[in-house]
């Protein structure tokens, strides 16, 4: 099996995805509502898969199996709980409420919604700025994943930077031509594709190992501690704080949060909600068990490589491995596209227009958005070359940063007494504190602040509590401003 064919499959798949985006572009209108929200016309299947595919990232395909391989299959429980159950509940609590409010007042972004409610351009810009800040490591994570994936697939013939650069190029090209309709279409294609492929991969490996029972036996022979629930990395503190920070963080991701505004009808949201736990399980079970089972096989996973392509390379034909890597890279591309697209709407609507040029033409705004995307992706590409942590670590940092927004937003959605000062304090203070923790690990001159305390409890969880307490406490101490209007968020009684 030649290198050329593997690379051909990867590039070919990316080109097909790009082609689909172009078709979607041709049927779309040129308004901002269509570009960012596909005219709020997304149906159940597409909404479900476009949200799902946004979660189909390097974090799931490479980071997840890697952690299961190193520390045990409990990662399935952590991700299943946070994504399948807690996120679904938040989908209702935050998502449906935002949909009701957004549809009523025509909002496109979270910052716009909050800025309008509290009559504050500053809050609007703050929320957008914070979101863009944490989007950066998560886009970088996809580039790191793609770089590692191609190194693994080609045995190092394509260098790490080459893979990262390839996906960066496709990302920029894709966002520039497609808009949300295109992203949503390819997400659906990719979601269905990856779901099938990951099951075929699991079946292939399991049958080579002699069945599920034999695979588990092999795993337990090599790592007996994998069989019992908990232990090692998986302390109660780790499980609880990871599940909570990631689930709340996911709801505040620009690309997920913006999905709350795009559903065609409430029925779409309701169906997606009920199907969600099953869909999540269908993806995570084979992906993470493959990682865990790999621990019982004689494969060697080199430093900085991902376990999934390695085990497939051992037990499945090369063309199939290439197809899985292609699918995973395309999934990362579509995650990143969603992120960059939403990020660009945060940038143009919440930062550029209100702060720099309120009268910019639509055409100018569209160009600013595209240039912004190219600059953002290029910078995160450069940062990805330094590989500042594992995929899980980088992802977790981003999730936690977003999670700190969640409680103030929930307060604003449900508690009319929330004030502008309360919101600003509740958002800004925990963000500054968390940024200090994260940066202290990167900057050599200062002592590194601990990320976890008391056996695996994440400090971000404590800061989440602080964010809620500050929002409520400061709101109680301050009066609502004249510009604020709580009735903007009222949805009941008609």
């Amino acid at each position, binding site marked *: 099996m030649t290198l050329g064919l593997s690379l051909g499959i990867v590039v070919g798949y990316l080109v097909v995805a790009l082609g689909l985006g172009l078709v979607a572009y041709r049927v779309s209108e040129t308004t901002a509502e269509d570009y960012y929200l596909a005219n709020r016309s997304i149906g159940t299947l597409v909404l479900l898969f476009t949200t799902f595919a946004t979660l189909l990232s390097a974090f799931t395909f490479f980071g997840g199996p890697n952690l299961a391989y190193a520390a045990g299959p409990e990662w399935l429980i952590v991700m*299943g709980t946070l994504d399948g159950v807690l996120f679904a509940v938040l989908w209702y609590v935050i998502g449906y409420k935002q949909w009701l409010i957004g549809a009523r007042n025509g909002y496109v972004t979270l910052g716009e919604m909050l800025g309008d409610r509290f009559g504050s351009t500053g809050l609007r810009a703050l929320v957008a700025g914070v979101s863009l800040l944490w989007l950066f490591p998560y886009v970088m994570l996809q580039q790191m994943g793609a770089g590692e994936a191609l190194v693994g697939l080609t045995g190092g013939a394509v260098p790490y930077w080459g893979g990262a650069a390839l996906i960066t190029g496709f990302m920029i090209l894709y966002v520039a031509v497609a808009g949300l309709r295109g992203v949503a279409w390819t997400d659906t294609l990719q979601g269905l594709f990856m779901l099938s492929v990951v099951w075929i991969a699991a079946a292939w490996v399991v049958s080579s190992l002699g069945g599920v029972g034999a695979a*588990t036996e092999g795993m337990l022979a090599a790592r007996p501690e994998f*069989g019992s629930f908990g232990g090692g990395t998986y302390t109660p503190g780790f499980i609880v704080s990871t599940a909570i920070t990631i689930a709340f963080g996911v709801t505040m991701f620009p690309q997920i949060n913006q999905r709350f505004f795009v559903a065609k*009808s409430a029925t779409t949201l309701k169906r997606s909600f009920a199907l969600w736990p099953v869909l999540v399980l269908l993806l995570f079970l084979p992906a993470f*068990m493959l990682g865990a089972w790999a621990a019982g096989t004689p494969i060697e996973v080199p430093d900085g490589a991902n376990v999934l392509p390695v085990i497939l390379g051992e037990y499945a034909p090369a063309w199939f491995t290439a197809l899985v890597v292609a699918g995973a890279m395309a999934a990362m591309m579509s995650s990143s596209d969603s992120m960059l697209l939403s990020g660009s709407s945060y940038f143009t609507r919440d930062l550029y227009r209100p702060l720099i040029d309120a009268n910019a033409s639509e055409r100018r705004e569209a160009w600013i958005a595209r240039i912004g995307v190219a600059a953002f992706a290029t910078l995160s590409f450069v940062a990805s070359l330094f590989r500042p942590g594992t995929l899980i670590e980088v992802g977790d940092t981003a999730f936690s940063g977003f999670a700190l927004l969640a409680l103030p937003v929930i307060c604003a959605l449900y508690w009319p007494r929330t004030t502008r000062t309360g919101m600003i304090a509740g958002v800004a203070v925990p963000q500054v504190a968390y940024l200090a923790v994260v940066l202290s690990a990167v900057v050599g001159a200062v002592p590194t602040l601990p990320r976890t305390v008391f056996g695996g409890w994440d400090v971000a969880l404590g800061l989440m509590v602080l964010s809620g307490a500050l929002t409520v406490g400061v709101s109680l101490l301050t009066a609502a401003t004249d510009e604020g209007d709580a009735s903007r968020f009222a949805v*009941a009684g008609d």
Partner: protein
Amino acid sequence: MTRSRSDIVWIPTFAILVAFAVPWPLWGVDRVVAGLPVWIWWHVAWLGLCATLFALFVRSGAWERGMGQRPTAVADAGTVEESATPTADTEGDR
């Protein structure tokens, strides 16, 4: 009357669904059943239960009542299949 008293039960239900998606009672248990650690089966079954109860939550109309919206008449009657239910929100289709 937009919220029925029995809807309150959904709050503890959701809390339990979230809390026990993690198989806490099986902490440290290492039995293997049907080829997989038993706590993985707990999780699989639990997520199935979640999907079922989520569907029930939607179908019972608690979904709308929880936000102070009016469920559609058909959903109230509880007889019509979900797929036949027209859009439930008061704003209509967008």
